[in-house]
């Protein structure tokens, strides 16, 4: 049993290591933005599209077909000044303003580099993505989250079976758990 659990712990950890590394690095980057200050690089462009496109989705689809933007349609709105939409992929987002009368689309692209890409990946979750990269990542994120819980539980088992570390470990685990549970429960009630 011990060998099996140790193998599960080891291989689950190795399989999820690249993902956990992305989560760790992006968490540090987001928590300490001042350590690596970065300014998005913005560029603007004007594109002639078909006139009278129905909505933001149609605008985004035509832009994607032309290769002007790439990613997931995150936002769309229509108003008297035209249609607006935002298309994004990790690290890059494009804000589009489209005039149905003229067919002209103004595209402002914002590039946030690798740190922005990691931060975007960190926040990617759910199964509703149409953009393939994000859909695959989101599915992996769900699996990694479940595996993280499995790693914790299997790690507990492996520690408990080590008699030499049992007493010291029990003190650390109890002290940390009591403190954390007190904070979590007292702030919630």
């Amino acid at each position: 049993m011990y060998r099996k659990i140790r193998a599960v712990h080891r291989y689950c950890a190795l399989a999820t290591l690249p993902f956990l590394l992305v989560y760790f690095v992006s968490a540090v980057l987001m928590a300490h933005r001042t350590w690596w200050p970065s300014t998005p690089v913005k560029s603007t462009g004007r594109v002639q599209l078909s006139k009278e496109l129905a909505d933001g989705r149609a605008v985004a689809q035509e832009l994607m077909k032309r290769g002007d933007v790439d990613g997931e349609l995150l936002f769309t709105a229509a108003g008297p000044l035209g249609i607006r939409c935002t298309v994004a992929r990790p690290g890059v987002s494009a804000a589009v303003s489209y005039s149905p009368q003229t067919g002209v689309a103004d595209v402002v692209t914002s590039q946030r580099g690798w740190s922005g890409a990691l931060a975007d990946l960190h926040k990617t979750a759910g199964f509703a993505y149409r953009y393939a990269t994000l859909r695959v990542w989101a599915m992996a994120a769900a699996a990694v989250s479940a595996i993280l819980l499995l790693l914790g539980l299997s790690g507990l088992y492996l520690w408990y079976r080590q008699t030499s570390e049992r007493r010291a470990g029990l003190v650390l685990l109890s002290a940390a758990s009591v403190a954390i549970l007190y904070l979590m429960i007292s702030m919630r009630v």
Partner: protein
Amino acid sequence: MLGLVKKAHTYAGLLTFLNLAVYGIVGLSASVGAMQGDAALRRTFEQPFTASANSSDKQVAESVCRTIGLTLALPVQSAAIQHDADGHLLLDLWHVNGHHRVTVLESEGKVRVEEFRSSTARYFDVLHMTTAVFRSGDWRMNAWAWYNEFAMWCLGLMMLSGVWIWVAGR
């Protein structure tokens, strides 16, 4: 050396087991969409309150937080302080459990409070992203923030030590 690395790996895991569980739960909750939706109105109540003379809006806001026991919303950001159409001080106080909308009725000597409570999934989400750069007026949130910062670095340590143990064992 390997013994020391194994010890560090084990102790880091034991000390941050619950934090890692929170990260896992948040990841799963986000995947199934459990964090979507606004905080729900839980209750509305009124409480006696008298603002000190010559206090600024920010001082009144912080005094309101202490009066209604909402230290988790401290310090109050300027964006949270507004006035309604009748000129009453209107406070939108955001915190880990959702938000409180407070109207200060100075002439009546009371505050009217609407309490909006977020889901447990959203509560865990806010907890998981709270690290040492966050400053709260509540010691519990500051303690959590520092511990969560520690847990974040422990995750890095466990990855490094885990690879070390694996390589050394081959």
